[in-house]
């Protein structure tokens, strides 16, 4: 039997072809995850520096004076450098962690396995998309080392600040250009990746693998790809226009008569709001690009450890599709402060509230699945449950922000910082952790240490609530975000709370060393993993751990069951997808 058009994998020869420039989706998936690991450590260290400065603005950050002699002379961070750290933290986390790990990383490794294919539809394009992502990351990081340092216009790069060049502040010269180039390159990689995911899901499913039998994670990756294909197709031309405004003298986003640093800018007629529209048309769906793979991973993991079928599997798919569709109708809720007509604001507010309906239904499906279940409390299950908790916590604050009247007060405050960190950042991270504990045995052929995994979960879970829950209170008290210090204003009474958050953030960060240690130790010395350690059903568990280069040892599986068959009355309480009838 031929196997689609994916190239048949004879084990490739040579170290470079096998481990570096490999077209094997499993190697590429691991490369994405390694890149995300480097990125998340970088982004977390940046957040530590920011948090330290917010708690103790007059105390030098140890060692930073030497690393950033202009932005942090003597270790004391300037307000501009604080913004630069914030910009880089946000950009690295959103693009190179939250998009890269759960979508590109796990998706690459497991989507072809889930559909029963040997590889992605276009393996060489797949390899290209990883290397292009790496180039984008290196271009972004290089902003630390050239000119006046990294840009300071935030991960949203609002024009005209981002468009006028070095008059706008340190880092707004070369640094901001590198940012725009990096994100433009990143878009290319994501478009190529999404194309591969969609073509693979549509065309390379093995015999019997109907769409209805696709595992939930693959459904989520597929829908995320469709979102990405549209969203990144808008961000890329927006980046091109931004770069042209910066280097070629055009005026797409820069209005007439703009004076910055006492200099009249040589531009006219542009619209700063145009950037906001283009950016958020990408930016809001991007939130779902980050979180939907987490939805898929949790929906896949919970039934395995609840030993019950997921409640309402079709409802889940319909809700995921509804979220994807609605995600394109809500971008204006990021722009309530832009002087938007109240009628327009209402038009964006309504779908924003409506999108909570499918999201809530999905949460209820998860909770309903747990009802009456005898849970196996593994680290993967704990992180999946933690995902539900932090997603709901972050989602509830979304109700307040969806309404223009309350958002106008809260939007510039820490309330929003709390909201998006819970609902997008921490939730997606919990999805990544859950996926790691769940799939590590399949990826590396060794089990992770469960005791360390549980410690990791509980300490992280407590830690993130200590970090982000108090930020709601800060926001309600009027604590503006993006300020580098609050030493001499009305916010001074809140400093002790900031210090508490900082200590919690440093603690939560340190806890991640347990995870890193577990990753490395298990990779080297973990007990050898069987093919199906969790008694799960989807196709990746039908092949060896780790899978052979062609995934199924030259015998493409024939699918006879859905992915959701748990809790039977036979000798086993589950039926695998490729099990004979």
């Amino acid at each position: 039997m031929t196997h689609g058009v994916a190239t048949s994998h004879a084990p490739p020869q040579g170290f470079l072809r096998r481990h570096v420039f490999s077209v094997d989706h499993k190697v590429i998936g691991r490369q994405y995850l390694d890149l995300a690991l480097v990125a998340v450590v970088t982004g977390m260290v940046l957040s530590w520096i920011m948090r330290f400065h917010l708690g103790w603005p007059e105390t030098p950050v140890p060692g930073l004076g030497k690393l950033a002699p202009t932005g942090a002379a003597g270790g004391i961070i300037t307000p501009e450098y604080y913004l630069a750290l914030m910009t880089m933290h946000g950009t690295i986390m959103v693009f190179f962690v939250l998009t890269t790990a759960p979508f590109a990383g796990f998706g690459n490794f497991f989507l072809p396995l889930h559909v029963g294919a040997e590889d992605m539809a276009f393996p060489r394009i797949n390899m290209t998309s990883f290397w292009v992502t790496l180039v984008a990351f290196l271009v972004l990081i290089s902003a630390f080392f050239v000119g006046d340092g990294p840009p300071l216009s935030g991960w949203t790069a609002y024009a005209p600040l981002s468009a006028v060049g070095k008059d706008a502040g340190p880092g707004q010269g070369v640094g901001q250009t590198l940012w725009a180039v990096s994100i433009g390159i990143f878009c290319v990689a994501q478009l190529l990746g999404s194309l591969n995911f969609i073509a693979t899901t549509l065309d390379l499913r093995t015999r019997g693998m109907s769409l209805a039998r696709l595992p939930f994670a693959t459904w989520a990756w597929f829908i995320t790809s469709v979102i990405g294909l549209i969203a990144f197709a808008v961000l890329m031309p927006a980046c091109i226009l931004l770069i042209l405004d910066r280097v070629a003298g055009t005026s797409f986003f820069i209005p007439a008569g703009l004076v910055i640093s006492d200099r009249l800018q040589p531009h006219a007629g542009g619209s700063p709001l145009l950037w906001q529209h283009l950016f958020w048309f990408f930016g809001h769906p991007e939130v779902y690009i980050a979180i939907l793979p987490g939805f898929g991973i949790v929906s896949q993991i919970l039934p395995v450890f609840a030993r019950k079928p997921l409640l309402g599997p079709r409802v889940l798919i319909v809700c995921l599709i509804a979220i994807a569709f609605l995600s394109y109708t809500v971008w204006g809720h990021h722009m309530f402060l832009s002087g938007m007509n109240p009628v327009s604001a209402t038009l964006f507010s309504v779908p924003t509230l409506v999108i909570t309906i499918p999201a809530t239904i999905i949460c209820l499906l998860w909770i309903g699945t747990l009802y009456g279940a005898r849970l196996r409390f593994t680290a993967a299950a704990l992180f999946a449950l933690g995902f539900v908790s932090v997603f709901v916590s972050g989602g509830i604050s979304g109700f307040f922000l969806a309404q223009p009247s309350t958002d106008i007060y809260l939007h510039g405050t820490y309330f929003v910082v709390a909201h998006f960190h819970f609902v997008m950042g921490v939730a997606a991270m919990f999805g990544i952790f859950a996926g790691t504990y769940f799939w590590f045995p399949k990826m590396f052929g060794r089990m992770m240490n469960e005791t360390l995994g549980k410690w990791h979960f509980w300490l992280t879970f407590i830690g993130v609530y200590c970090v982000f829950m108090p930020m709601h209170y800060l926001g309600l008290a009027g604590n503006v975000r993006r300020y580098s210090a609050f030493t001499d204003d009305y916010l001074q009474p809140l400093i002790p709370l900031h210090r508490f958050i900082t200590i919690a953030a440093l603690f939560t960060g340190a806890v991640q060393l347990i995870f890193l240690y577990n990753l490395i130790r298990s990779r080297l010395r973990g007990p050898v993993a069987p093919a199906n350690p969790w008694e799960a059903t989807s196709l990746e568990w039908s092949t060896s751990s780790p899978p052979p280069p062609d995934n199924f040892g030259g015998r493409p599986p024939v699918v006879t069951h859905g992915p959701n068959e748990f809790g039977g009355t036979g000798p086993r309480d589950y039926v695998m997808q490729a099990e004979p009838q």
Partner: protein
Amino acid sequence: MSTAMLPPPPTLPGGSVATAAGGPERRVAETGVWIAIGTISMSFAALTSALVVRQSSGADWQHLHLPALLYVNTLVLLFSSVTLELSRRRLGSFGLHATLILGILFLVGQGLAWRQLAAQNLHLATGPSSAFFYVFTVLHALHVLGGLGGLGLVERRLAAGGLSRTTFKAAALYWHFMAVLWLYLLTLLTIRG
């Protein structure tokens, strides 16, 4: 997005592709091109909305008179689509060569049109209408260049006898889309540019 990366699909009589599913015949190269068409359309739709917003944001929009050469280039590109279609139906190389030459001719023609505008002192940064003109036409030309790369690969495979109908069809689909996209851009730039 070119089809240059696609591995040769195994062919069956009638030019369809076998799949592991053994179910309905799938054409992965064609699927890939359809997806690419979707995403490229979205990019140009975004730029179109940018043009509309920018036109109303400032008082500096001046209508750009398009060089007449563009209409000649349009005919060249449309004709290249016809020759490609003839070549695809007969699996003949003459039409394919003609398409490649016409495609290159189109790009040369676009280059000449840019020079004509530059000679009138209309550059990228001269005004918003010229800026959008260059952005649209250069991006389109880059996509055409990618298409030429894909067609070059089709030509090589045709000569070597390893070309499947489905790969040819996918490449042709992309090329026809370039013509359709160009007609859209020309209309947009004529009416609103």
